[in-house]
């Protein structure tokens, strides 16, 4: 279980003075084991900052973030991140990119390759193992990113607007693929998004955040049954929750 208590984060002002930007202000929430939590909010609400704190990539000022009671002080083998801009190594082929986390953890070479190969197949990139990232479409690149994160078999998957830069069709395909994978091997997921459809479709709960300073406005339960697919979007509950999110987001929008 991920527990976040009174979490605050402030970024120093541009000139290093004390007029910093409060990115997160006393966040309180928890994510249960194997739960899929989606986080949505207007841009600048600190969603990504929150994710990076849970990932252990940046420090926080006040409060506590803990996983199964252990405070987060840095990255750990229990977590893996899927990045918005994929963050693939452009000089390395698909297999090497997928095996990255395993090699960092000093897994023997042969075992690395076997595991990476299994993940490449899982995300449907068989036959592309030796391709370079630049030879792949955006959707395929993010499947590499997903495979790389899953390869280290983390308990917790942290996804930072992973499909945000993809076109609509590709995004839908990847959402379905993610749902299938997640339903097969359950993990705890925190999924940042700016798409209301995506938030409702994927999440067991949707955490709605307010803009600067980022606070938890509300956590909304999504009682849609699983397995979900794009037919789910036709259900009344789906439409209702999406509509509710939109009402809230619209009232926050400054632009």
């Amino acid at each position, binding site marked *: 279980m991920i527990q976040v208590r009174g979490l605050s984060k402030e970024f120093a002002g541009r000139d290093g003075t004390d007029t910093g930007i409060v990115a997160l202000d006393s966040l309180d929430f928890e994510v249960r084991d194997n739960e899929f939590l989606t986080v949505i909010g207007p841009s600048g609400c600190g969603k990504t900052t929150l994710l990076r704190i849970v*990932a*252990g*990539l940046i420090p926080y000022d006040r409060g506590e973030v803990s996983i199964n009671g252990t405070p987060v002080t*840095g*990255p*750990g*083998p229990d*977590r*893996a*991140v899927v*990045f*918005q*801009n*994929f*963050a*693939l*190594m*452009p*000089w*390395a082929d698909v297999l090497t990119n997928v095996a*990255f*986390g395993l*090699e*960092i*953890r000093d897994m023997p070479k042969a075992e690395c390759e076997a595991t990476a190969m299994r993940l490449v197949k899982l995300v449907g990139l068989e036959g592309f193992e030796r391709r*370079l*990232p*630049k030879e792949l479409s*955006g959707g395929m*690149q993010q499947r590499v990113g997903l495979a790389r994160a899953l390869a*280290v078999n983390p308990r917790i998957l942290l996804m930072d607007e992973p499909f*945000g*830069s993809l076109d609509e069709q590709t995004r839908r395909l990847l959402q379905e693929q993610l749902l299938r994978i997640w339903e097969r091997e359950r993990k705890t997921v925190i999924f940042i998004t700016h798409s209301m459809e995506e938030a409702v479709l994927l999440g067991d709960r949707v955490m709605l955040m307010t803009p600067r300073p980022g606070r938890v406005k509300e956590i909304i339960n999504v009682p849609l049954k699983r397995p979900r697919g794009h037919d789910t979007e036709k259900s009344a509950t789906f439409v209702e929750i999406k509509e509710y999110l939109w009402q809230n987001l619209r009232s926050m929008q400054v632009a």
Partner: protein
Amino acid sequence: MAKAGVEVGKMRPISVPGALWRPLRGTWMEALALVGGVALWEMLGWLLAMPWLPPFSKVMEALVQFVQSGVILANVVVSLQGLAIGFSISLVVGLLVGALMGRYRRVEQALHIYVHALFISPSMIFAPIFFAIFGLSDAVRIAVIVVYSLFVIIINTTTAIRTVDPALVEMACSFGANERQIFVRILLPASLPLVFAGIRLGMGRAVRGMINGEMFIAMVGLGALAQRYGSQFEASKAFAIAMVVLIIALVCNWIVQTVENSLTQWVD
């Protein structure tokens, strides 16, 4: 959304100025330009009949004589020995210092002023000092080659490391990579294209340093020959030496380029 690979690829355009430094690839336009240039040279040489512009054929004659007498080979060996040692020192020190400056703010802050001052100032200014330190030895011309080529390698390597996509470093951190792993697996490969741009520039400057050192201080190798024939107004011989130096420069550049191409095929 910009992708990491494309970002790195875009950083390529620092290149060596002057078409002559490019390895001569077999495009017909280049061949035509070369033939045309030689023909023009030959023609002007005969037409003007100036002592400072011998026709191309006379220069070639002198070159053939040099080669046959063994003068060229002996001096090329001397020059290249200095170049190899001097450039190797620049390469090792340059990459090391550049990498440290690129990765660690403090190191960069401490060394920035020295590196840039030495990069900007004319390298020959230090020649008398080296002479005073090392006396009449090969160390002087090697030191000259080092000051010519070292700083551009440092500066490019620093920039190369500094401009590595931070998303990649963050990605590595998220998988628990330690400092060594970040360096070897991310910073090193990601910075290669820009690092090589620096190595290429450094190589060009090293050849310049080699000749200047030999012409004005050490009085050995090709530089000494050029100096001697230049002051004796033996233009065709001076030109012949210049041709040899040109060929050495091209070959050196071609070697660097070949290594670079084989290591950075992933760049668009």
